[in-house]
């Protein structure tokens, strides 16, 4: 018996489908327990000290690691956030000081001074020093690193120097006007100088919790670190379990095996909490994930701004929101980055206007043109949205086709280059992260002089007002003629015990900060 990759993928797809079907079955059976809608902003009351909080996240299987730089799955990221600290966190879409208290750019923006927080200690009691930060930056570019970081493209890491116990000078390779935002967006985490192993007995962090037991793909047990610089955490112990199947996370919460199930399916939310003492929670409007399509302007068809506008006018946003999010979301305004600082909220979502869309297509000579939209099971909902979008484009007379690939080949550069559009989803990352990541992919990038100028201005600007103006200009370009069709913003839902409090969204609601989690009673 030998399995091919395709077989298995089909099978896993089948399970996902079957599980979804089964949760629908469950929906029919248990609709009587009054399915109130998701509670927004729940769990903010002050927690009492003590207790063990058990939280379930999608994991990374046997490949999970305590190395914060190798974190990919939500379980990895959640653990990393409570074991280690970052120089700057992302809070409400803006950078917020953590281990660094300030990052002051030089007048020419070609270097910055990083000042570290005082009285921070590692889990063995030793103090945090500038040498630890220098070591962590150098770790990014060490040999054989397989993780993604954009920092080496900005920072002259070899010339970083520690000026004192708690200050460093960091030269840059190009102007960096807002180093705090750059470091926050890159999730720059600090590890102790000389760290080479991240095994449970040896790993040291500065975070609110330390590891007592860890098994990749299964569970991590973390105990409170009493001398945490932010003050001791409320919970005695955190248990972070990896449960990959979303419906299984729901079952684990309903069966009382965990107190919190992260990122639950919309179908499960429809059925309600499903057990006494539980509630479905909504991460909040500011933390929605943007879903859309990135148009490939290196293809002849999509290079025409009239065609791009026609697609944006032709998409039925509400229908997609109703079908893909089951209504748990709102239509989008074609811009990624909703919830981030400087996001252009004021730009309205376009109304569907098929007549104008058809006229624009005719003007561009693109009647009945053939176009391929690439999608993969990279994130739930991408494939469904692609199939519906294809139908909507067919209504405009276009010969649209969906090209559904596996999550492995989804990001294949040649594949993306050969498709006219790519289904895409993005959380509320900082704007510079979003715009720089898309620029790295020729077939996802949007080449436009005005946009590039605005992005360069935003990166180099050392003053708040200048930055806000530059970001406004960049987003106006995207709204006017850009290559994004962000049709919707989807809620991120979780299932939690009603008395669980303190789960805080920082960068993404899919991997919140749980260091302040605890029970109210």
């Amino acid at each position: 018996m030998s399995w091919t990759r395709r077989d298995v993928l089909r099978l896993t797809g089948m399970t996902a489908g079957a599980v979804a079907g089964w949760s629908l079955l469950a929906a029919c059976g248990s609709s009587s327990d009054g399915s109130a809608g998701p509670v927004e902003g729940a769990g903010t009351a002050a927690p009492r000290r003590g207790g063990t909080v058990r939280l379930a996240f999608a994991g990374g299987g046997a490949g999970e690691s305590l190395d914060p730089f190798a974190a990919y799955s939500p379980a990895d990221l959640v653990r990393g956030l409570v074991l280690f600290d970052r120089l700057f966190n992302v809070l409400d879409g803006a950078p917020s000081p953590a281990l660094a208290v300030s990052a002051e750019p030089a007048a020419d923006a070609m270097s910055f001074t990083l000042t570290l927080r005082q009285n921070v200690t590692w889990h063995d009691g030793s103090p945090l020093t500038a040498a630890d930060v220098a070591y962590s930056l150098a770790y990014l570019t060490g040999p054989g690193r397989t993780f993604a970081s954009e920092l080496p493209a900005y920072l002259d890491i070899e010339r970083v120097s520690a000026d004192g116990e708690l200050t460093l000078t960091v030269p840059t390779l190009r102007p960096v006007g807002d180093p705090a935002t750059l470091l926050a967006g890159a999730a720059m985490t600090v590890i102790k100088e000389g760290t080479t192993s991240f095994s449970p007995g040896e790993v040291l962090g500065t975070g609110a919790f330390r590891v007592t037991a860890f098994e990749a793909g299964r569970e991590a047990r973390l105990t409170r670190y009493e001398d945490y610089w932010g003050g001791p955490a409320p919970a005695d112990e955190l248990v972070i379990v990896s449960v990959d199947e979303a419906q299984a996370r729901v079952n684990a919460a309903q069966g009382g095996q965990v107190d919190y199930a992260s990122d639950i399916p919309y179908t499960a939310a429809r059925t309600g909490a499903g057990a006494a003492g539980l509630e479905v929670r909504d991460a909040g409007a500011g933390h929605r994930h943007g879903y859309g399509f990135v148009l490939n302007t290196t293809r002849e068809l999509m290079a025409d701004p009239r065609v791009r506008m026609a697609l944006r006018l032709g998409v039925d946003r509400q229908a997609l929101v109703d079908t893909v999010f089951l209504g748990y979301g709102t239509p989008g305004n074609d811009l990624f980055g909703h919830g981030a600082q400087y996001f252009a909220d004021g730009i309205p979502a376009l109304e569907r206007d098929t007549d104008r869309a058809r006229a624009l297509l005719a003007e561009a000579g693109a009647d009945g043109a053939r176009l391929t939209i690439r999608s993969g099971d990279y994130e739930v909902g991408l494939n469904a949205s692609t199939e519906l979008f294809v139908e909507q484009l067919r209504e405009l007379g276009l010969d649209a086709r969906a090209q559904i690939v596996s999550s492995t080949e989804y990001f294949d550069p040649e594949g993306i280059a050969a498709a006219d559009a790519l289904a895409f989803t993005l959380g509320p990352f900082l704007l510079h992260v979003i715009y720089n990541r898309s620029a790295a992919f020729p077939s996802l990038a949007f080449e436009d002089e005005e946009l590039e100028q605005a992005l360069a201005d935003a990166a180099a600007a050392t003053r708040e007002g200048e930055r806000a103006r530059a970001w406004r200009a960049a987003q106006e370009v995207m709204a006017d003629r850009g290559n994004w069709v962000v049709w919707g913003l989807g809620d991120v839902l979780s299932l939690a015990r009603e008395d669980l409090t303190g789960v805080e969204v920082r960068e993404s609601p899919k991997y919140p900060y749980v260091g302040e989690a605890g029970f109210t009673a």
Partner: protein
Amino acid sequence: MTRRDMAHRAIRLLAGRLAVTGGLLLLLSVVVFAGTDLLPGDPATARLGGLGPAEVAEARARLGLDRPLAERYGEWVTGLLRGDLGTSAEGRPVGELLSERLGNSLLLAGLTLAVLVPGSLLLGVAAGLRQGRAVDRAVTTGMLLLAAVPEFVVAGGLVLLFAVTLGWLPAVSLVPAGASPLSVPEVLVLPVLSLLLLGLAYATRLIRAATAAAARAPHVEFMRINGLPPRTVLREGVLPAVLPVALQVWLTTGAGLIGGAVLVERVFGYPGIGDVLIRAVQSGDLPVVQALAMLLGGVMLLALFAADLSTRALTPVLRTAGR
């Protein structure tokens, strides 16, 4: 025929079968390696695709994915022969990655077999001896229904009933870090039950058919007419004909259980190789996929080899026959 002749014959037979199994394993290795390699997508695109084409090309070169297929295959096979399963795309030895989880999957398969062997024998023989009667009809219909339902539906149904509705057993097989699943036996019940129901349906049906055929055989008829007690007829006449078939069924079912557990493990979040396989497939971690495919294929081939030999050993006519 002398004892020595028989020994010679047995050795020749064993050697022949081993050669065939070895050849099939080699063929399997080619199919697995080339098959997984030809599919689009690789660890570089899966992990670093989001960063851009330059990073993908760099990672491909680092992982050696840009070298010719034959060269990589040769390296892989010689590694396999030395017991080296290679290094995963994340840089960890595949053997280490699989060893503990393989143990967990074997535990599931072993426990399932421990119930499946007596269960299927009892049900199959009971139904086969009472062909056409109420017991037989009940067993046959029940097993047919079970066989018709996909495994994840069975697993899902069990969770819905025993975990979500009744709350008797955990819905998810959470095993504490550093502990064996045996330390939390309640998490094993539903996965084992799901696997058991599927294996049982298949094994019982085959054993029932073999029993029914044996019960109609002339030598059994003869024993019955001569007034031997039913228990003796069963022991001396029916079981010797049924057991070789049953053994084959159990061996192949057992080997199938290790691979078949993939979906069941997924539904319960059980820490076995199923989860490793699915994840490796999704992240394009070819060394892990290849090692697992070889392992599962190899186990199946060995089970067939053992089934073949044991059938011959248990069947007098075949035991003394030439080939």
